[in-house]
Every structure is written in structure tokens, then in C-alpha cells.
């Protein structure tokens, strides 16, 4: 491979760096501004200081003043708790229901198996946006509006997750299951005691995909959880943004809090995060 000349290198790294600033700016700026007062935010906006926290001598009280005020003005803690219950509920029930369905489609022979597989794949085409109204009417008639049940139950079964589990179990060697069957283990026992522990990566991937999708979800929580005590964090952010007077430092603090769980997943589970997202891409 030829070595790049100095000019080529300057241009290449120049372009890369400018792009890095453009893509990183809002995230870094959001976190840094969440620690500044209104005057500092506007003063630092167009300089390199936008990428830095406020100087210790500029701090009035603590770095977390905006956070404390934001928690006082709206029910942020409640919104976060609701989001956690919503997403974790879907993950727990979703992992059980969808992995079992995927396992059935991968391992057992039964009448109409390919028909059900085709139906499940076909439902992937239905955009959730096109059924939210009748789904709302259904959930309303069930008396589930403004309940966790209403938020969670409609989204436990997930065609995409079923399909992903099925593909994964198809590649899983059969021998262990057959040995356990000879030992007299029940099918349910084989699945939960032998298959699940050995296929943790696919469970981790599906769990992360579900978390990302539902932590960021907007339309369904907006229509089904309209009471302040049931708002999820995304809906809470929209509500907070429309509460005058707008204090940008506090809004930035709330935005940062809403992003922290995603950041944690991204930093510590990056492999699963990227794999989970790109899996959607490569496997289809």
C-alpha cells in the first residue's frame, strides 16, 4: 500500500475531524450545557467552550443545579420509572414468549408450521403507525388506558424477535437436546435448562433491541399514557419543553437524563448494541 503524502494526510484528517465535530457536537454540548446557567450556555455556544464543562469558579451552587431544578419542576423521576417499567416489562415477557415461539418454529414439527411462520413474517410489513388507532380503541375498551398493562401487553409478542430467535435456534446443534430427551427431561425443561443458558447472546441481542425500541418509543405511550403519572420519559420531555418559561439548562439536564441509559448500554454493551442494530441489516 502506498504511503499518503503530507497534503493528503492533512486533507483526510481535516475532513474526518470536521465531520467528528458535526456529529459529536449536539451530544457533548447537551451534556456540558446541562451544567451551565443560561448566560454561560449562550456565551459558550459558538466557541470551543461548548465542549467543556463550566469552570469551577463559574459554578453557582453545584454542577447539578439544573438537574435539581428540573426534578422540581416536572415529575422526571416518575417518567423515568414509568419508562423503566414499560421497557423492562416488555423485555421480560417478550424474551419468554418470543423465544418459545421461535423455538417451536425451529425445532418442532406440527401441522401448519410453515403457514404460521409465513403469517408472522407477513405481520412485519404492517406499520405499527397504521394500527395505533384501533389498538387504542381496543385497549380503551379493555380499561387499560393509563395502566402499565396497556403500555406493555400489546407489544410483548414481536414478530421480528420471533424470527431472530428462530434463525438462531436453527443453527443451534440438536445433540444436547436429544441427549436430555433420552434422560427423560420434559420439552419445557430442555428448553429452559439446556437451550436458554447456551444461547445467551441471542437473548442479550433481542433484549437490547427491545430496550432501544421501547425506551425511545413515542407514539404508543403518547396515546395510551396521557395522565401525568403515567408519562414515559420521551413524552415527559416533550411536555417539559412546552412548559414556559423555557430554561434551556434544565431542558438539557432532562435530555441528558433521558439519554444516560442508552449511553450506558452503548458504552458497556457496545458489541451487542451494534450487533443488535446491524443484525436487522445483515440477516434479512
Amino acid at each position: 500500500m502506498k504511503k499518503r503524502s503530507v497534503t493528503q494526510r492533512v486533507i483526510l484528517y481535516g475532513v474526518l475531524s470536521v465531520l467528528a465535530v458535526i456529529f459529536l457536537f449536539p451530544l457533548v454540548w447537551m451534556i456540558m450545557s446541562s451544567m451551565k446557567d443560561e448566560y454561560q450556555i449562550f456565551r459558550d455556544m459558538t466557541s470551543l467552550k461548548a465542549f467543556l464543562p463550566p469552570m469551577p469558579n463559574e459554578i453557582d451552587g453545584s454542577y447539578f443545579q439544573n438537574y435539581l431544578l428540573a426534578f422540581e419542576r416536572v415529575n422526571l423521576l416518575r417518567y423515568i420509572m414509568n419508562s423503566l417499567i414499560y421497557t423492562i416489562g416488555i423485555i421480560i415477557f417478550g424474551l419468554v414468549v418470543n423465544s418459545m415461539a421461535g423455538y417451536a418454529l425451529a425445532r418442532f414439527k406440527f401441522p401448519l408450521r410453515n403457514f404460521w411462520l409465513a403469517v408472522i413474517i407477513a405481520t412485519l410489513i404492517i406499520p405499527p403507525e397504521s394500527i395505533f388507532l384501533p389498538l387504542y380503541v381496543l385497549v380503551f375498551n379493555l380499561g387499560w388506558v393509563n395502566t402499565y398493562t396497556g403500555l406493555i401487553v400489546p407489544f410483548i409478542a414481536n414478530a421480528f424477535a420471533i424470527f431472530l430467535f428462530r434463525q438462531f435456534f436453527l443453527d443451534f446443534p440438536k445433540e444436547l437436546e436429544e441427549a436430555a430427551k433420552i434422560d427423560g427431561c420434559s420439552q419445557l425443561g430442555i428448553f429452559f435448562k439446556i437451550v436458554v443458558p447456551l444461547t445467551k447472546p441471542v437473548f442479550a441481542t433481542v433484549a437490547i433491541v427491545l430496550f432501544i425500541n421501547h425506551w425511545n418509543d413515542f407514539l404508543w405511550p403518547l396515546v395510551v399514557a396521557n395522565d401525568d403519572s403515567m408519562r414515559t420519559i420521551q413524552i415527559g420531555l416533550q411536555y417539559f419543553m412546552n412548559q414556559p418559561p423555557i430554561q434551556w439548562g434544565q431542558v438539557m439536564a432532562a435530555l441528558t437524563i433521558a439519554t444516560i441509559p442508552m449511553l450506558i448500554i452503548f458504552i458497556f454493551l457496545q458489541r451487542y448494541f451494534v450487533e443488535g442494530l446491524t443484525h436487522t441489516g445483515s440477516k434479512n
Partner: protein
Amino acid sequence: MARKPYLKTQEGKEAITGYLFLLPALILLSIFLLYPMGTAFYYSLTDFYILRPDEKNFVGLENFSMILGDAAFRQAFVNTMYFTVLVVPIQLGVALGLALLVNKKLKFKVFFRTAYFSPVVMSLVVVSILWTFMYNPNEGLFNEILASLGIPEQPFLSSPDQAMNSIIVMSVWQGAGFQMMIFLAGLQNIPGHLYEAAEIDGANLFQKFLHVTLPGLKNISLFIFITITIAAFKLLVQPMIMTQGGPLGSTKSLVYHIYEVGFNYRDVGYASSMAVVFTVMVLIITIVQRFLIKEEEG
């Protein structure tokens, strides 16, 4: 010898187990996906109004003929098409460009890749609020930068001419890093010996890109093309947070319009008929694109 009943045989038992494993998912999908699908069609033929649920009247195709004359629906459709037709090629191009850049031999490669991917970590709501601040006509970041370059202030989100374009720029910025990752996976799957062979044949950089890279990325590009198109067609969060569909309805999208008619005006019958039309449009996009892919492959 009498045959055992089917359910007592080995196959029968396996079928029962299979259905027991599958049933929870099937029941939930039927109740919360297929049934609402069906009721959407049914409601679209009625004058169902949420506040008087017991007085649904069958109105035939009246709702659908109303759509034809509905200026707000037409505007939402045009806006959505405009957004989709611009976002899809731009985002595809930016994502491919970024992937090619970070696929080179580089120092700090992981840093650059992570930087371009970082917007994906923020939700659409978070990103929309941040960019609303940056687009602010009086004290926002973009006008500060323009002012320092001697360019006059721009209205951005508060102008009917610029609002949708501003949303498009933001959407590309937010989504491109994700597709870059998918492209990267594709680039790494192109065997190195193809490039070496091209080099021996005296191909220059551009020829290598045209004859090795692009064909190698064909399937992945088509897949990304389909997913971006459908995602773009479902545009909702950005205008809802940033512009409330304005100014003058210039950023009102189809899904947003359906939401407003269904929830703010509570006209479930009419909103359902628009949802049915929306679904048909998504299906047509999917089928046409699948068809194009088949043509390409055949």
C-alpha cells in the same frame, strides 16, 4: 391392529408441544396486531366517533371519497413524499461516504467511527429538542455561525419554505451513523483479492469503487434503501416536536395528520380510512422495491 389416535403418537405429542410453545405469541399477535388490522378496515367504513361509540353507522366508502377532496390530507401526502424523496438518497449517500472514510487505514479509527455513530444513542425526541434550540432564529447556534460568516439570519423552522428542509438535514444527521455501521459490515465482507485483481488490471481508485465496491454492496444498499424509505414514510416525531406541523402545515406528515384527526378531533372512522390508505401506500412501496430487487437480481 388398531392405530393409535394421532394425538397419542410421537408426532401428535410433538405437535401439541409445538403449539403450546407457539400459542402465547400467536394469541397476543392475533389480539393486538391482526384484530386491530381488521377493525381498522371496519372502522374506515363507519362514522365511528370516540365520544359516541354506540352509534357507529355504516357509511360505505364515504370516508374514502372524502379523502380525495381533503386538502389537508393532500398536503400531508405531498410533505411526506417530499421528505422521503430527499431523505432517502441523501442519507444513503452520507452513510456510504462515512463508511468508505472510516474503512480506510486510519489512526483513531474507533474514535471517528464512534463519533459518527453517536447521534444514534439519542432518541428522536431528544435530538428534535436539541435541534429546535440550534435552529432558533434569534439566538440559535446556526444563526450565530452564519452571523460570524457575514451571512444574514435565516428563519429555519419558522419559515414554510425552510422548515421541512431543516427537518431533513437533522434526520439525515441522526440516522446516517447507523447505516454507516451496516455499510461497514458490508465493506468488510468484500474479499480483498478482488481489489488486488483490479489493481493488477490497472484500475484506479474510482474504477475500483465502481466495479468492486459498489457491486459488493448491492444487497446491503437495497436493504438499507427499503428500510430508510419506509422509516421516512412514517415521519412523525420530528414535526410533532419541532414545528407542530407548521408553519402553514408545511411539515404536517401523513401519520401526524392521522393522529390529529383520530385523537384531537376524535373522528376514528375518517382517521381509520386514512390509516388504511397509508398502509396500502406502505405495502405498495414495499412490493415495488422488492420487485425492483428481483428484477436486478434476475
